[in-house]
């Protein structure tokens, strides 16, 4: 059993990054995630010698991440929605140059400067692109403070396995809430081997390593894209993660991730107490998306309801999976408002009524 602590989500994530043997972190303050930078500047260098640098902007942070990840480091940045928007060009370059790194978005309400309250309004940006070009991020969606911590090392390992940026998409509520968390042991920074592709200085024994996303000849650029798509297909085949609750007999299915999944679970319990057979599918990887489990559920369920803290974004992926076989509805609150279990129950009651 690892060390147990009561921690805020943001601090658990920061602590986990130190323990994961992170070499460098670059970030710029923004609510509701400034605790990550604050915690790391207080703790990291002193304990492991990791570089923690407050950059002049998120544009600088993401490009520092590019350099440091390209130099073989295990590296992370974090921000919240407006800052993540600023990073999109850099994220596209990182994906194109295939540099492993971890990016954390503690989502707040938008558009624009929006609100500092929690939101899931950045789903499209996270899983459908965000920056330019055909690229994918591996997107992990924690629902507990425990997962805020666990997904850090998991994310680093996925990033390094596939030479791909990984995004932890969480929200202001998970970042700020306190829960019990079991921390993993310290990873020794010095034991990780230098990746063969990293730019660390060219010895006589190998040709120069170059990290670039520029392939000016269209034929070559197409081949690079084909190779990227092949990698993405491998990730889709191997890395889909989700959780199901009460799906064995469910005739109505809630689909929700992160904080919305916790609220949906409560709504499901209220329904079950009243004899309604509601189940829950919680995508843990938002890309690759768990289409298959939803497709399978459509064989027996009467309908699907996605609950999101946005105007209806993930619902499009659920509709893709269900492919018109069953009704798929969305319930969402926006602008930093969190849906209540009772609101969800009343939508489900209406759906039951129209299904029978």
């Amino acid at each position, binding site marked *: 059993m690892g060390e147990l602590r009561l921690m805020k989500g943001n601090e658990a994530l920061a602590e986990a990054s130190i323990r994961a043997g992170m070499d460098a972190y670059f970030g710029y303050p923004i609510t509701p995630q400034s605790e990550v930078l604050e915690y790391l500047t207080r703790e990291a260098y002193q304990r492991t010698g990791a570089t923690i640098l407050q950059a002049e902007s998120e544009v600088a942070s993401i490009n520092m991440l590019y*350099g440091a990840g390209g130099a073989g480091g295990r590296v992370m940045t974090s921000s919240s929605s407006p800052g993540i928007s600023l990073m999109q060009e850099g994220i596209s*370059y990182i994906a194109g140059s295939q540099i492993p790194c971890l990016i954390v978005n503690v989502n707040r309400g938008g558009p624009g400067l929006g609100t500092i309250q929690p939101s899931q309004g950045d789903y499209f940006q996270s899983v459908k692109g965000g920056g330019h070009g055909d690229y994918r991020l591996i997107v992990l969606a924690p629902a507990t403070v425990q997962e805020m911590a666990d997904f850090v090392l998991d994310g680093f390992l996925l990033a390094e396995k596939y030479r791909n940026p990984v995004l932890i998409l969480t929200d202001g509520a998970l970042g700020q809430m306190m829960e019990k968390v079991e921390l993993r042991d310290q990873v020794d920074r010095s034991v990780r081997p230098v990746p063969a592709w990293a*730019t660390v200085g*060219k010895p006589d024994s190998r040709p120069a390593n*170059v990290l670039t996303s520029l392939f000016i000849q269209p034929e070559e650029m197409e081949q690079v894209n084909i190779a990227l798509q092949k990698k993405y297909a491998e990730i889709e085949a191997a890395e889909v993660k989700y959780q199901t609750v009460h799906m064995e007999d469910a005739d109505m299915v809630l689909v929700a991730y992160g904080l919305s999944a916790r609220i949906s679970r409560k709504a499901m319990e209220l329904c079950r107490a009243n004899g309604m057979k509601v189940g829950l599918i919680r995508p843990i990887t938002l890309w690759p998306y768990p289409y298959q489990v939803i497709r399978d559920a459509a064989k027996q369920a009467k309908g699907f309801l996605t609950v999101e803290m946005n105007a209806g974004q993930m619902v499009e992926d659920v509709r893709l999976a269900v492919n018109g076989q069953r009704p798929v509805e969305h319930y969402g609150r926006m602008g930093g408002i969190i849906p209540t279990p009772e609101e969800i129950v009343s939508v489900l009651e209406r759906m039951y009524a129209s299904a029978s």
Partner: protein
Amino acid sequence: MQELDIIDEHEGLSLVCEKPDTLKDARMHYCPGCGHGVAHRIIMEAVAELGIQEKTIGVAPVGCSVFAYHYMNIDMQEAAHGRATAVATGIKRVLPDQYVFTYQGDGDLAAIGTAETIHTVNRGENIMIVFINNAIYGMTGGQMAPTTLFGQKTSTSPYGRAQEFNGYPLRITEMLAMLPGAFYVTRQAVNTPGNVRKAKKAILNGFKYQELKKGTSFIEIVSNCPTNWGLTPVKSNEWLVENMLPAYPLGDIKLPSKEDLIHA
């Protein structure tokens, strides 16, 4: 430079100049007379002479020199437009004992990348920044740059740069020299053999000073763009002397003191 050597196969001929193995066997794509090729060469000669190929990482910009890594035989990263010094910061923070440099044009360094440039120098990152000032956007076909001179015609200042529309030519090198993080700041050129030698000396300093870990070395190289200036290579160098050098005078702007040069 390689030592003077007699090549056996060509009896009677002596080798006076050789491509260092820090330059790849690739034909450069630069226009005839362009300063980029000479600047690449002196940086790579410096790497060869210092014997630091194994310890050097370069960052290429977006601009005409975007393919610097096709020519420089060292590990390199290609940065987004303007972000080279942020990328170099990331590299240096992970590999503090390696030699790290950026190579950037005036649009890259002094327009889109101004914030990164200033903050990198202000942090005193132990890197070398090589700034190629040709007073124009070469790669995109000759648009106005922050360093474009008053009256200079470009495709986006077709009547000549005018203060009321376009502001002043930016002397960013002087500006950066005011920052305490700047350790060594100099302005050089590669328009004559003598200036090439001086510029190379500055590059050698920029590498060696990194060992002291006392701040940023910033080396501006005033250069030309025959194609987009619409001049022959020879005329472009004349134009450089007549117009660029009065606005961007050559010489050292900030030199380390004697105490500065002592290893900490």
